[in-house]
Each structure stands twice: as C-alpha cells, then as structure tokens.
C-alpha cells in the first residue's frame, strides 16, 4: 500500500491547479499565455513529477506467478 501522506499532497497540488486564488484583473501574459494558465500547467507538471517519484519510491514490486498464461 502507498503511504497515506501522499494524498494530502495530491489534494493540495490539484487545489493549486485551479486558479480560484488568482484575483480578477487586467490581462497578464507569461510565456505568451494568461498567467493563470501558466500557473495551472506548472502545478500539473509538479503533480506529474511527484507521481513519478511516488511510483518509483513506494510502489512495491513483490512478484507472484501469474495464474494462467
């Protein structure tokens, strides 16, 4: 089983990927896109990296024979 502490981290990351905390205002462009779009993509990139870490570090590899080929 994966450690329980990863779930609050995921919750925080996904919550941060939704721009509810970005104040409405004039258009601000980062890297050619509205800044809240760049923020969202950056946070999802963080989710992807964290997932690679979790899978590699915590997913057990204990093997059993397949029941049927």
């Amino acid at each position: 089983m994966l450690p329980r502490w990863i779930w609050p981290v995921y919750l925080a990351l996904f919550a941060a990927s939704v721009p509810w905390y970005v104040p409405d205002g004039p258009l601000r462009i980062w890297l050619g896109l509205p800044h809240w779009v760049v923020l969202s993509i950056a946070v999802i990139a963080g989710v992807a990296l964290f997932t690679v870490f979790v899978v590699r570090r915590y997913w057990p590899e204990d093997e059993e024979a397949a029941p049927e080929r």
Partner: protein
Amino acid sequence: MSALGFGIAGLAAVLLYLIGMLYVGLLARRARASDSLGDFYLAGRGLGPFVLFATLYATQYSGNSFLGYPGEAYRIGFAWVMSVGFMTAIIVSYLVFAPELYRASRRLPLVTPGDWIDHRFGSPALTLVANLVFVAAISNYLLAQLMAMGHVVAGLSGGAVPYWVGVVALTAVILIYETLGGMRAVAWTDAVQGVLIIAGLGGILATVAPSPAHLAAITEWVAAAAPEKAAVPSWADCVTWGSTLLLIGLSGAVYPQAIQRIYAARSARALKRGVAAMACMPLLTMVPLFLIGIISLRELSALEGIAADQVMPLLLAQWASASPWLYVASLAVMLAVVAAVMSTADSVLLTLSSIVAKDFLGKTVLRGAPDARLTRAGKVSSWAIVAALVGVALVPRVTLWGLIELKMEILIQVAPLFMLGLHWRRLTAPAAIAGLVAGLAVSFALPLAGYARPFGVHDGLVGVFANVVVCGTWSQLAVIRERSAVSEATA
C-alpha cells in the same frame, strides 16, 4: 485544397496504415498460445513495459482527445487548460487501487473487472449491476469513437469521403484484426498507433511552433475579441473545474479497458514503468492539443458557427494547403488522429466483448462452457455490438464532449467498488449495492428534477458522494448490528 483534402498521397497513407494494422492482427494471431480467455483477452498476461505503456497511452488518448478537446478549447477558451489536469488526475487515481489490484490479479484468474467484484463481494447481483454500468458507459464511449471515425474521414477528405464510409470502413478493419488476435492484436496495434500519435504531436508542434511572442499575439487577440475566453475563471467556473478534475479523474481510472491492462501486465515493474510514463503524457499531449484549440480561435475566426468537433480537421486541411512541409506535418497529424480513434475503439470493443462473453453469457446460457467456446462467443458478440452501434453512429445527434460527460457521470459510480473495496474490508456487498443504486439514482434524478449541476458540481459527483455515504453508513450499521448480536449472545 483539392476535393480530397490530402489528395491521393493522403488516401494512400491511410490505406497503407490500415493494411499495416491488418498485418499486425495476423502476426498476433500467429503468436497466440491457446484459445483461453486469458490469452485472447489479456494477451496471456504478458505485456511488457513498452507495449503496456503504448496500449495505456493509445487507449486513453482517443478521438475525443484529438477532435473533442481542441474543439472545447475553441468553444470555452483558456479555461480548457483544465484538460491537462483531469488527464493527470486519472493517473493519480490509478495509484489508489492499481498496486493492490495487480497483486490480486497474480493470485486469481481475473479476466474482466466483474471477476474482481465477484471475488471481493461474492454477490452476483452487485456484479450484474456493475457490469450493466460498465456496458452502458463504454458503449457510449465506443459510440463516440465510431462517430469520431466518420468526422475524421469526412473532415480530412474535405467531404469527398462521406461520414458513413469512414464509420463503416474503419470499424471493419478494427473488427478483423481484433477477431484475429484479441488483446495481443489490440496492444500491438496500439504500440504502432501510440508511436504514430507521438509522431503526429511532433508534427503538430513543428507545424504550429508557437513562440511566446506568437502566442502572446493570439492571447491578446482573444482577450480583445472574446474577453470571457481569456479572463480569470469566476468562482463558479473554478467549482466546475474542480468538479471536472474529480469526475474525470475518478471515472477515467476505472474504465474497464484500463483495469484489464492492469491484469495484462507481465510484472509489477512493467506496470510501474507504464504508469510513471503515463503521468507525464498529459503535459506532452494535452498541452499541444489545448494550444491548437486556442490557435484556432484566431485562425478560424472567419468561419462562423462551425461545429467544435470539426476544428481539428479544418485546421489540418488549412495547414496542408499552405506548403509542402506543412502538408507532410499535417499528414502525420491526420494519421495520428485516425490512430488515436482506432486504438481507443479497439480496446473498448475488446473489453465489451469480454464482459458479454465471460460475465453475461458465461454465467447464463454458456455456464460451464470451455474457454474456447466463450472466446468464440466473445468474437461473435463484438460483431453484434458494433452492428448495433454503427446504426446509432450513422445518425449523430450530440457532440463528442456531450457523449464523454454522459458516460463519466455513470462510470464514476463503480469507482468506490475498487477504491473502497480494495482497502476497506468492512464494505459489504449489500452496502455496495445500496451505494451504487443510490449514486445512480441521484445522478439521474438531479437533471430530471430540474436541479442539474447544483452549484456547478457534476451530477455524477453528487451521486458518488451519496454512493460513498450510503456505503459507509450501511457497512457501519452492519458492524453495530453484529456487535450487539454478539454481546446479546454472550450476555
């Protein structure tokens, strides 16, 4: 643009690709080890890291991704960046149950998702209801793919090849290679199709190649022409965004075809590598598709009232006529779109046929029949399912995104069976049935009663909340009843 969008070379490329898929189907048939259900539907449980990743990828990214999603970005604007998040949420949701389910699949002869539900809960009624949900949801999904085939062919040939020819011809090819080689054929063709999709996305990036300055010009144009499409989403929009993350994330992970790929993994290591790679694919796939939708806002601004599903074919046709290099790049994208649609349709069809053969026929009229007979019944049922759905696809009435949302609202109701069922021993079969029925009832009742999407939250998500509450309460009541019975007996 000539009458036949990509000309003779485009048509030849598609034909060559289709012949290649049929050849892979033949190779897969030669590689079969037996006529068992495990061999036909799970490729002998021997998918290695690359093929497993490719089949997960090609199955998850479908006609909806290539046609529906740029269309949604065109329709709603920058807020469609949420698609990158919800495709990532699907992979995160896998982590809730895939490690345990994989281990169970090594101990037990699981072929369909219903097999695990049967083993865990021992309730034929629950397995039947869950299977009906699976069939309803993925039939809808398959229908969306069949419609996408027609749109792709019609759009990319500039209307020279009619919609119905696309639906019928591509479906026939899928049926043939799938009947020949089962999951092995599907996974191997998915590997080819996955490579084509990645090459196509490279083609997209090479074609569009938006520099920050170019993108900034488009963003400013959108902000001036349609300010609501570039503005910071309102609080209500953010609630719907969060609701979409949960809805698609939870339901996308329990697609029966995705669950069967967990069973089909050769080893835990192969599955881990596949899932880790999949976590990065939304960034590499959805971001380019999102950008295409955004770019189309300006490029297709002269065309009023175009269907959102037609954005991608129209853009490709426009780029292909601009220069020889763009023609080649657009051709790669076009093949990728065809590959994406077919790779999802074949996986969904195979899963549907396995549920019909093993869980419906194998437990009723073919109870006790040998595997070879069930496998044959599954092949026949594939043809019957497709015949029925092609009939519906030839008279399309809803958009692709409409179909996707519809199936997700239903499919999410089976997520607790896997996500709670694997971790919470106290979840009983009666509680799970009550939860599932309550979830479905709430999901359907809300729109019927005129309260669709309360506070911007999807009906399916409200339904799954009711589902989990009923599961939890019912199971706890059973524990309390048990304890009081024990204390009465000992008193």
